[in-house]
């Protein structure tokens, strides 16, 4: 990715099911925060944003993540422009 995009791009963050209810938002766009390079570091940063965020990310045992619509682990690296979704373990079917 070009340096210009790397400095101006934002993260598109989506929340589903009870994470959406606790955060109080279906989605938000944030600039990639300084010092945040991975999903896990983003979660630590998001926890500080509001009481709702803190409640949503209180236990990561029941939170799953997808980056650009593929399941992702906490150590997944992030880049500006990524779409990052947080949701509970799936219960379809």
């Amino acid at each position, binding site marked *: 990715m070009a340096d210009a995009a790397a400095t101006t791009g934002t993260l598109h963050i989506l929340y589903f099911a009870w994470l959406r209810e606790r955060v109080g938002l279906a989605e938000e766009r944030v600039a990639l925060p300084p010092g945040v390079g991975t999903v896990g570091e983003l979660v630590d940063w998001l926890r500080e944003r509001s009481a709702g965020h803190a409640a949503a990310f209180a236990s990561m045992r029941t939170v799953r993540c997808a980056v650009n619509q593929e399941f992702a682990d906490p150590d997944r690296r992030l880049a500006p422009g990524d779409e990052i*979704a947080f*949701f509970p373990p799936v219960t379809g079917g």
Partner: protein
Amino acid sequence: MATVRVQEQDFDVAAEFAALTLGRTDIGGIGCFVGTVRDSAGGRRIGAMMLEHYPGMTERAMAAIADAAQARWELLGCTLVHRVGRLRPGENIVLVLAAAAHRQAALDATAFLIDWLKTRAPFWKKEEFAGGGEAWVEAREADEQAAERWSGGVRA
């Protein structure tokens, strides 16, 4: 070869069968699974079920699940239809059809497809209780174990 859809409206099982088999004479068996809304959960009466999903990722995940089934078995076609929105007890939720030359592949692929749909496609259910109140359905360990039994390699 796979048909994958997410929709609010009901599906017609006979119509999906007809679409899967139209003009085909090589199919020897079709496995079918239909998931429906139960009227109770944990001893509580269910008034309705809300099904939420992640538009975009859902379709990609369902297509990937269909691809995985087609890589494991010699399927002659498969159909995955999953409903979203507010559903009442007795209503259809999900349809899986898997067509093959012989029954074992059709039946095994059908079981695989629903097991993986339940554990790898981004859908979430919220139960609305008949007596008031609501709760998100929690993922079941049994579903994860059912999906894991397919991790032992190809079963042709």
